[in-house]
């Protein structure tokens, strides 16, 4: 501990400990107070050992230790660990104070979540005040772990992150592996790995060791490859593509085709994700390609759904009784036409104004659907019921799996269209317009035409998605078409990466799939959206799977400031 090494003054060390500790404590307390900790405590990840609630609770102290150790980079290793531990312990203070306060004064009316179950969790079942030292100890330990995390090499960090991610994912979605194992192996095998919905401790250990091992092996190989990069590796080529690329695509496609067969709920969820992917890809044309921030996209979805409803319903208000297959292209066309029509009044608007006006459009359409004025046609608040399920050559599309395949076709079509458009002359026009409208015009680009085409083409997939949605539910109601849909689709685009097609798919899977599969999350859906968006903007501003242009821009930015801290995706 030579004096010369210590660049941070002692007082600022304590300031760091206190600051990061209290911030971590605030995070922990926040998760407690919104009820997540208590609600998620029912959900075991590792049987008897670790619940989802614990995991959420541990994020705060872990981050406190990690940040403190980072801030004290010029100190000795032992000091960093020690202060990390202290910061973790400090993170326990806010929760302790609130709990002790609640003993004296009844604040239950304000903090509804501060219930005895929560206190039970925070004191590890020992009650107040006996459990408090234990809480300080556990939080301190997590702070220590957070500090220790900063010592790991990038490789090791990746391995740890991945292992954690794999365990949490497998445990959260255990329904799927359990059902797959039960179906293709036996219930006994499933019981040997899982207990209820949670991983058994042994399988958790094995799984994490496996992941760590594989991740290490992978990064070693990647490193070796880098060394021998000059030699061109021999590759098997199948047609125009390397064979491993063909194989991985085949695997993905097989996965997409087979997975929904294993489970109805899963098929339903995947169908839902697919609907959002379709809408995401369409809205991405408007927002990502053309830079038109449209918050009224749900209106087009509603147009598609209502077109199917009106044209195919067998209820009393129906006068057309068309088949789904005739009505489907009409729904798409209606979507396209109204997309363009709604685009006309906003031709001269940009950015925020455009967002607000289109948001208004979305609401107007919903209110019109609710109105008495149109109720002879669209059923008002009662909506339209008795929409028959489509059938093709005597084959009824009436189960989640079958709808899923229908959606999959829609997704494939939309994705194909989006890729082709992006690389087309029109795609260039959109890009130029997004970057600078005046310059685009002076280069000869017709803004009116370019904008309307973006709205119209982007709307086609929403019409399609709405059509399937209506047929799947068998009935449609105005309240199904709220602003939330527009927001979810837009969030999927942002999380996936503006303009990136694979990004939209991943974004929709995360935002729509997670809450559907995890009932526990449903209540906190928007809280988690918010956290996810903020964390994403801080750590991966370009999205999960950014486009090349976006990546390029960020890379060339990074060349300028190498000292920037690299993003951490630590869980806790």
């Amino acid at each position, binding site marked *: 501990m030579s004096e010369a090494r210590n660049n941070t003054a002692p007082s600022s060390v304590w300031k760091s400990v206190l600051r990061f500790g209290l911030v971590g404590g605030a995070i922990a307390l926040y998760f407690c107070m919104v009820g997540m900790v208590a609600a998620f405590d029912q959900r075991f990840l590792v049987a008897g050992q670790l619940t989802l609630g614990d995991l959420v609770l541990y994020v705060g102290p872990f981050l406190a230790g990690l940040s403190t150790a980072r801030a004290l980079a010029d100190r000795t290793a032992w000091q960093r660990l020690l202060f990390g531990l202290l910061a973790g312990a400090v993170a326990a203070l806010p929760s302790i104070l609130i709990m002790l306060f609640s003993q004296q004064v009844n604040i239950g009316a304000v903090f509804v979540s501060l219930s005895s179950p929560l206190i039970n969790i925070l004191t590890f079942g020992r009650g107040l005040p006996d459990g408090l030292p234990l809480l300080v100890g556990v939080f301190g330990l997590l702070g220590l772990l957070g500090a220790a995390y900063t010592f790991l090499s990038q490789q090791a960090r990746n391995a740890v992150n991945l292992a954690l991610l794999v365990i949490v994912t497998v445990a959260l979605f255990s329904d799927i592996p359990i059902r797959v194992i039960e179906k293709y192996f036996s219930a006994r095998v499933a019981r040997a790995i899982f207990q209820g919905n949670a991983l058994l401790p042994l399988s958790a250990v094995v799984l994490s060791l496996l992941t760590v091992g594989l991740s290490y092996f992978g990064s070693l190989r990647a490193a070796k490859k880098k060394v021998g990069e000059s030699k061109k590796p021999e590759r098997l080529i199948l047609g125009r593509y390397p064979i491993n690329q063909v194989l991985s695509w085949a695997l993905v496609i097989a996965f997409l085709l087979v997975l929904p067969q294993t489970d109805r709920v899963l098929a339903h969820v995947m169908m839902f994700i697919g609907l959002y992917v379709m809408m995401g890809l369409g809205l991405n044309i408007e927002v990502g390609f053309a830079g038109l921030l449209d918050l009224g996209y749900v209106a087009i979805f509603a147009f598609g759904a209502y077109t199917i409803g009106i044209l195919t319903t067998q209820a009393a208000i129906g006068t057309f009784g068309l088949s789904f297959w005739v009505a489907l292209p009409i729904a798409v066309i209606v979507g396209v036409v109204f997309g363009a029509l709604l685009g006309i009044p906003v031709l001269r608007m940009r950015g925020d104004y455009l967002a607000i006006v289109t948001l208004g459009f979305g609401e107007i359409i919903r209110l019109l659907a609710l109105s008495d004025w149109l109720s002879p046609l669209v059923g008002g608040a009662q909506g339209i019921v008795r929409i028959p399920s489509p059938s093709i050559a005597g084959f009824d599309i009436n189960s989640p799996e079958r709808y899923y395949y229908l959606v999959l076709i829609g997704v494939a079509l939309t994705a194909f269209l989006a890729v082709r458009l992006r690389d087309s002359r029109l795609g*260039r*026009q959109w*890009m*130029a317009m997004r*970057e*600078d409208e*005046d*310059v*685009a*015009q*002076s*280069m*000869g*680009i*017709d*803004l009116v035409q370019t904008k309307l085409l973006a709205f119209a083409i982007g709307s086609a997939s929403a019409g399609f998605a709405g059509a399937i949605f209506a047929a799947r539910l068998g009935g449609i109601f105005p309240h199904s078409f709220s602003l939330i849909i527009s927001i979810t689709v837009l969030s999927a685009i942002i999380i996936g990466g503006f303009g990136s097609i694979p990004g939209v798919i991943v974004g929709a899977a995360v935002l729509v799939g997670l809450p559907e599969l995890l009932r526990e999350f449903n209540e906190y859906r928007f809280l988690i959206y918010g956290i996810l968006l903020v964390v994403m903007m801080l750590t991966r501003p370009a999205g999960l799977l950014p486009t090349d*242009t*976006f990546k*390029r*821009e960020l890379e*060339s*930015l990074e060349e300028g400031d190498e000292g920037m801290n690299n993003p951490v995706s630590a869980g806790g």
Partner: protein
Amino acid sequence: MAMLEVKDIHTYYDNIHALKGVSLEVNEGEIVTLIGANGAGKTTTLRTISGLIRPTAGQVKLNGEDLADYETHELVYKGISMVPEGRGVFAQLTVEENLEMGAYSRNDNRVRDDIENIYTLFPRLQERRRQVAGTLSGGEQQMLATGRAMMARPKLLLLDEPSMGLAPILVEGIFDTIQNINKEGTTVLLVEQNALMALSIADRGYVLQTGEIVLSDTAKKLSNNKMVQKAYLGVD
């Protein structure tokens, strides 16, 4: 007949009367400069010519044809190309992709050759052909914007303050290039605050003051004009 004829145009921003009867002419093969202080209306004049704003009165004619019937995006097909103030390069595209965008209006197969020509004009751009335009320096962005405008093979090039924010040495380079472009047959209307440089390469000039042309003459006579010297050349 002049190539570009601006006849007594009045342009408003809501109720701000930005141009109060501006008239000017640009003949084929000339470099004509429009100088004036901040807020005089130079950019507004260019924007009016290119149709980004419409005048409430007056006419803009190209080779005798009234441009009021054309949209901005159609003018490039008539041979007008503009380098906007503040450059407006496509930040997310590479240098080369920016140049390709500049040829958007063309459908001949000489685009590649022209890109190479631009690189000869601006060797700096060739070195950075794969770099994203948003990360170019200010001077390089100006070169790129100019090069991109040239990619449309314009007959008339409108330049809005190409020297803005550039070091003196780069300013000279840009003005040399403008002269070269002009020698190759492109007519230039050059808006500038750097009156000294602009008048040194221009054939004729106009002085704009709060929306009105107060002087017009050959470049040589303007640089000797007492009032111009005092107001724009810093000579008393």
